[in-house]
């Protein structure tokens, strides 16, 4: 496997950086691969994986993953009835659905990315060592499958670490670990942060005296996976906080801990002061935006899994499982994975029929859970995708969904004074291109030379038109009657469609009297829209995608202008 199999994505990131910079009005454009998250963690609209929608969450419901209900709540019993083969097969299937790939190999390669050769890539898997022998915690077979996948990619078991920096999880997992035994979790255990570079102080706005695993803070971990048990969460003052759940985000209260006291995360557990509604869990959100989690390039935390084979409805975060729920949940973006995990499992009493979430938990979840989305720029009205299936009814994997791309755009009307009102390609409606042609062009735009259209360059990456550079030629070749010639773009990857606003016609300002008014140069926004990474396959895009598109559009315009300048310089030299 190539050390850097994602050159195309790198191109995308480069272009995205331009878009972001342009959108922010920065004068200095950086074309290196250091996207914003490498220094600052979460950026509004950021896509965790350019090939997987943040809003896409897969849930597998399979009663065969447990051969029987565990006889009791001990850790041994929690694991004894897990069918590792079924769990592994389901995780493969979930990865395929998540990444929309028809083979598990392709799916995992899409999910896991590294800027380094795999052999030197370091991976951290978060688990939960809290509580005692009967506490519900992620079953070992999930980690085994993940390490099998990672090792198959070329990651060294010595570079895979299973950790809980707050509580020592080794007592639970050590017997299941081996770097050489393929029947076990091929990884090393970190007792708290011992194999994670120790602790390093971090400054947070919403909590004081916090440290975190140094290798995450310093960017020495390339891939982070959060695997959480499915548990309700009561808390301070007898209220419920954190959305009444502790899942993939709250799991990182074991990545960030109190600096001065071992095994404590008190400072992160905000006090409710018995208020209703409970206050926003700002520290929870802050650490999950932190560069330790969402920094890196590619983004460090690449996969979030909820082990809901067994779940805690009434027993709270430290308690034993009290429901057999037979589910696994997978996504790339923790806040939305957790939102769905709570809404679709913990708060569903038809599933939690062993012991339901207490009423106060339900009430408080109604206040806090939507904040899981809004804190990251999403909302409940977005086209969130919860795809739950059973193994005997696996949804078809639409690896090449139809993209309508831009529809025919019409050039400007013939006019002796140049094109006047060419209309651009209409919005793309998303979908993945069958071929990496991306959005090719839209017509319209302004031009002082008239002409038909620029032909876009978009969609050159391996993932389809993730980012169009827009029209490449600074000058249209001349009007040809005002009809569009290149409007039938095939669409960009997962596009929500370009915004049409900048394609609504050329408004030639000083045409020299071309033969046909035609459209002017195309700005790139149709193509950019076509390439926005946030689009989804169901509803065709989202607010975030539009935001991305808008940002990228600016960037692409800037890029196009730069090219013109370069060409101009070239031609003049």
């Amino acid at each position, binding site marked *: 496997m190539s050390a850097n199999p994602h050159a195309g994505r790198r191109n995308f990131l480069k272009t995205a950086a331009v878009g972001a910079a342009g959108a922010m009005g920065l004068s200095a454009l950086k074309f290196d691969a250091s996207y914003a998250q490498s220094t600052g963690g979460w950026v509004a609209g950021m896509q965790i994986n350019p090939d997987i929608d943040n809003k896409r969450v897969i849930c597998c419901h399979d009663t065969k993953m447990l051969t029987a209900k565990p*006889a009791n709540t001990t850790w041994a019993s929690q694991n004894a009835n897990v069918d590792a083969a079924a769990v592994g097969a389901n995780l493969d299937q979930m990865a395929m659905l998540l990444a929309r790939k028809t083979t598990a190999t392709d799916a995992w390669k899409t999910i896991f990315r590294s800027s380094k050769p795999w052999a030197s890539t370091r991976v951290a898997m978060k688990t939960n060592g809290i*509580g005692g*022998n009967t506490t519900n915690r992620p079953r070992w077979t999930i980690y085994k499958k993940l390490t099998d996948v990672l090792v198959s990619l070329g990651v060294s078991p010595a570079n895979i670490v299973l950790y809980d920096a707050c509580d020592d999880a080794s007592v639970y997992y050590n017997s299941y670990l081996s770097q050489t035994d393929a029947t076990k979790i091929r990884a090393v255990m970190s007792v708290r942060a011992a194999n994670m570079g120790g602790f390093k102080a971090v400054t947070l706005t919403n909590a004081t005296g916090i440290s975190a695993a140094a290798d995450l803070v310093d960017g020495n971990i390339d891939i982070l996976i959060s695997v959480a048990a499915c548990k309700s*969460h*009561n808390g*301070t003052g007898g209220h419920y906080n954190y959305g009444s759940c502790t899942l993939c985000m709250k799991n990182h209260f074991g990545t960030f801990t109190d600096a001065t006291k071992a095994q404590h*995360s008190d400072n992160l557990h905000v006090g409710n002061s018995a208020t209703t509604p409970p206050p926003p869990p700002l520290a929870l959100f802050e650490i999950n935006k932190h560069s330790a989690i969402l920094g890196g390039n590619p983004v460090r935390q690449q996969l979030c899994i909820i082990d809901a084979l067994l779940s805690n409805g*009434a027993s709270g975060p430290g308690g034993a499982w009290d429901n057999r729920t037979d589910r696994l949940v997978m996504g790339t973006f923790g806040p939305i994975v957790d939102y769905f995990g709570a809404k679709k499992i913990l708060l569903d009493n038809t599933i939690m029929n062993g012991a339901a979430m207490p009423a106060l938990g339900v009430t408080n979840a109604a206040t806090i859970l939507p904040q899981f989305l809004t804190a990251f720029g999403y909302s409940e009205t977005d086209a969130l995708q919860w795809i739950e299936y059973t193994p005997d009814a696996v949804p078809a994997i639409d690896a090449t969904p139809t993209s309508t791309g831009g529809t025919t755009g019409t050039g400007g009307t013939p006019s002796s004074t140049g094109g006047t009102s060419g209309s651009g390609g209409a919005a793309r409606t998303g979908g993945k291109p069958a071929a990496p042609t991306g959005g090719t062009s839209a017509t319209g735009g302004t031009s002082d030379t008239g002409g038909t259209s620029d032909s876009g360059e978009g969609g050159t990456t391996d993932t389809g038109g993730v980012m169009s550079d827009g029209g490449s030629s600074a000058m249209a070749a001349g009007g040809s009657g005002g009809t569009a010639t290149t409007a039938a773009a095939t669409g960009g990857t997962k596009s929500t469609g370009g915004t049409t606003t900048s394609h609504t016609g050329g408004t030639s300002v000083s045409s020299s009297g071309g033969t046909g008014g035609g459209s002017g140069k195309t700005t790139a926004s149709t193509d950019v829209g076509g390439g926005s990474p946030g689009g989804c396959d169901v509803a065709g895009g989202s607010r975030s995608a539009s935001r991305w598109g808008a940002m990228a559009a600016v960037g692409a315009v800037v890029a196009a202008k730069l090219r013109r300048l370069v060409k101009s310089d070239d031609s003049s030299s």
Partner: protein
Amino acid sequence: MEIRNMKTGLAFVGLFLGLGTLGCGSSASGGSFPTLNAADFGTHFKFADNQVSGWTQSTFPGSFNTYTGDELVTAVDGGAGVYVDKGMRVCMSQDLMGTDPQIVTVWAYDFTTAAKAKDMFDWKKSDSSASATIPNYDGSVAIGAATSSGLSAIAHFNSLYFEVMLSGYGDQKTTCSACPVAPKFLDVFKTKSN
């Protein structure tokens, strides 16, 4: 100093134990339990093998623990908040093994006053919608919540609050086979609480 305190504390414990055996009923006492440090508190309430017939101490690492209020978060995560806010000072937990696959995790908490212990009990009772009757105990003193694998019983005696979490009994929603077991542990706690 620490040893002297321990001795003093244990002397109090002995005194109260002696007094406690004189009065045994199904109601909560209203007195105050002596202030013990976490280690002594744990030792006091720790079950010996077969103290409840057929139940022995788990040998799994970490099966017996004590916590101050500040430390409870290490055991039950943010769930510690409700205990600490309601006045929990120290507590202990212990896992015991019964006839396979039956197990129990017992918790004893010092809330320093009977009112606080009752407040914790009332909150937990309400929060978990506990309604399973514990034989020989009034529902205002001890009650249980059935789960899909056992029973979570709670009780308060004196200034102390207790949890007895039984597992390995199968679904208890219709028939509570664990309900007669819970009072065996609560009886010991009650005796030690006076």
